[in-house]
């Protein structure tokens, strides 16, 4: 399984700022290896962030998102000390879910 995500969620005036880094090759399928053979595409396709059982952001990605993807978004209505959960799934069916506690901004 892939390495954990690094998630930072900070709340200020009821608004949560979420910044995260995922660990993934994000191989485009366009690159050739040393022997001149195409390296198969391998990339995160779906990302979902949830808070308190509701989805606060969902995304579909293609292979042109940079290696070790970075994502920043903001949502309202969350409280200090509660948890946000983020899940990604890649085109090989690998999947990873990580949580972060919302801290003061």
């Amino acid at each position, binding site marked *: 399984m892939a390495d954990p995500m690094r998630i930072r969620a900070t709340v200020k005036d009821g608004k949560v700022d979420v910044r995260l880094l995922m660990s993934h090759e994000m191989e485009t399928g366009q690159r050739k290896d040393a022997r001149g053979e195409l390296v198969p595409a391998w990339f995160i396709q779906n990302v979902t962030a949830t808070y308190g059982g509701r989805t606060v*952001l969902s995304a579909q990605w293609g292979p042109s998102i940079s290696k070790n993807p970075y994502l920043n978004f903001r949502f309202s209505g969350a409280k200090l000390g509660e948890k946000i959960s983020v899940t990604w799934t890649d085109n090989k069916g690998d999947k990873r879910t990580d949580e972060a506690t919302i801290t003061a901004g």
Partner: protein
Amino acid sequence: MNRQQQRRTVLKAGSGMGLLGVLAAMGLLPAGEAMAQQQWNAGAFGARSFADAVKALGGAAPTENKGILITAPDIAENGLVVPVGVTSNIPKTESIAIMVEKNPNLLSAVFNIPSGTDPFVSTRVKLAESTDVYALVKADGRYYFTKKEIKVTLGGCGG
């Protein structure tokens, strides 16, 4: 093949099922969630023109709108890692897509913005060469876009 080898082959096949499939089979994932995780718009991600990508995302004839702001450098030294942020000031923004005109496939990402989430996302994308980057916004059922040119010193594909 003796009995033991057969058993190993079966176990091996089972382990190739993938975690998601195993979890779903064990009933640990609600069927709905499992399906939502699988959704990926192959048609849109395979599109090779802006018009085709918009169409595959369910839109038609988007209008240019200055209420969408792309935050990105004018010149990117490394096309492999180009920060791109999109902010929509259009009321009832439902989704934001990022497209790179001169990449082999235009569409980089589509974000669904539920109510309660700011109409803003920021990420990093690969640019094959100097290109226009499009932000497509769906708001109240209509489609809008803006674009920004980014010059690339070192391309982000091939190599």
